[in-house]
């Protein structure tokens, strides 16, 4: 019988099929990775929005001579802070939505928002 022959090496077949399925899944995930929504960097000064910038574009934003926000390669960090403790600089780079850098003396916060709104009201 035909099927008997195939069952003779069932384990090898299973491994092969599983490997191919995994390969297809990986390919699918890679193809879809580019569809992830754009994140926004929101800078606030004393609670008021100073500016909103796409995280995908490299740029430097000087916030009222208090500090400079650098958006670079999908990450955000603070440099040239005038505050004495420089905690915000030491925070390093953030990149995930929900993460924030806060400079308490200067009243400045830098936050990454991952939400992509269809409408705002």
């Amino acid at each position, binding site marked *: 019988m035909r099927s008997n022959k195939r069952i003779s090496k069932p384990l090898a077949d299973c491994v092969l099929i599983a490997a191919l399925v995994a390969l297809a899944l990986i390919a699918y995930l890679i193809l879809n990775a580019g569809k992830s929504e754009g994140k926004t960097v929101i800078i606030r000064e004393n609670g008021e929005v100073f500016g909103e910038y796409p995280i995908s574009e490299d740029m430097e934003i000087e916030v009222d001579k208090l500090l400079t926000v650098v958006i670079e390669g999908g990450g955000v960090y603070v440099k040239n802070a005038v505050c004495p403790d420089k905690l915000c600089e030491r925070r390093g780079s953030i990149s995930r939505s929900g993460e924030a850098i806060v400079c308490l003396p200067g009243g400045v916060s830098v936050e990454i928002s991952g939400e992509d*709104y269809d409408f*705002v009201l």
Partner: protein
Amino acid sequence: MKRLLTAFWAVLISLSIFSGCEKAPSERFQTSYTDVFDTVCTFTAYCDSEEEFESVSDSLHEELLRLHRLFDIYEGPQGGGLLALNRDGYLENPDKDITDLLELGKEYYEISGGKLNIAMGSVLSLWHDARENGALPDKDKLTQASMHMDISKLIIGDDKITLSDSDMRIDVGAIAKGYAAQKAAELIRNLGIKNFALDLGGNIKTSGSKPDGDWNIGVRDPDGGILTGIKAKDLSIVTSGDYERFFELDGVRYSHIINPETLYPADIYRSVTVVCENSADGDALSTSLFCMDFESGKELCEKLEIKAIWVLPDGSTQTVGDIEL
């Protein structure tokens, strides 16, 4: 050879499982109009082709223009609309949309305990002039006008609408956009479009979803940024606030919503957002709640089983229903 064949099929099958099976998703299209209801109307939809979207959005635009002409009381052309009702004191053989809108207004007068009154047009026109002229209305004139806002004198008959107080004026500004958004959404759905969102100046009506999930509507924090995102599927979200439509006099900011009891702009909240199914209800409720103390508003929301967010002058918030801030 047979094994190779098996492997080949395995690849094909698994590829199709992970990617190819579902129908190609339709494309996202968007357009805006600025000539309806003195606001910006934005229509976003998923359609199979640009031709389909254009044909649907043309019908939508026509419908909004038609409703705008019926409900406008300031500059509408001569016709059978509310402008004529205010001018003549009666309207014969009214369009069904006028009858339905006025009935809705009467219904919400009862529901809101008088906080929403479409018969206070005489008071609102004084505030309309105030905005144009940059001077507060005369207090005596306001009191005078308030003698003519008894909604029971708006008589809706089968083939004739009558204002039995000749000094009474109808102003449907608080409910017209929500009603129009609801009607327009029904039209779009009847034209075969299932997944769309319509924003008519702060009245958002969503239908279906996007290929990657539900519609995501951001509710603005009056002090900047976003208060919360609401995942909306077949829902209406309506905000009444003092931060989009307002006017300033001597450094004081006045909301465009006038409290029928005080005859002055409501100032209890910065904004009130209502989440419910029907956009006409949402518009009427957000205006009602904007003029109502929080306890009464909360009670009303719980009775009607709707969700709402209040932002108070100090920036604090209150919510009713399952909303996370």
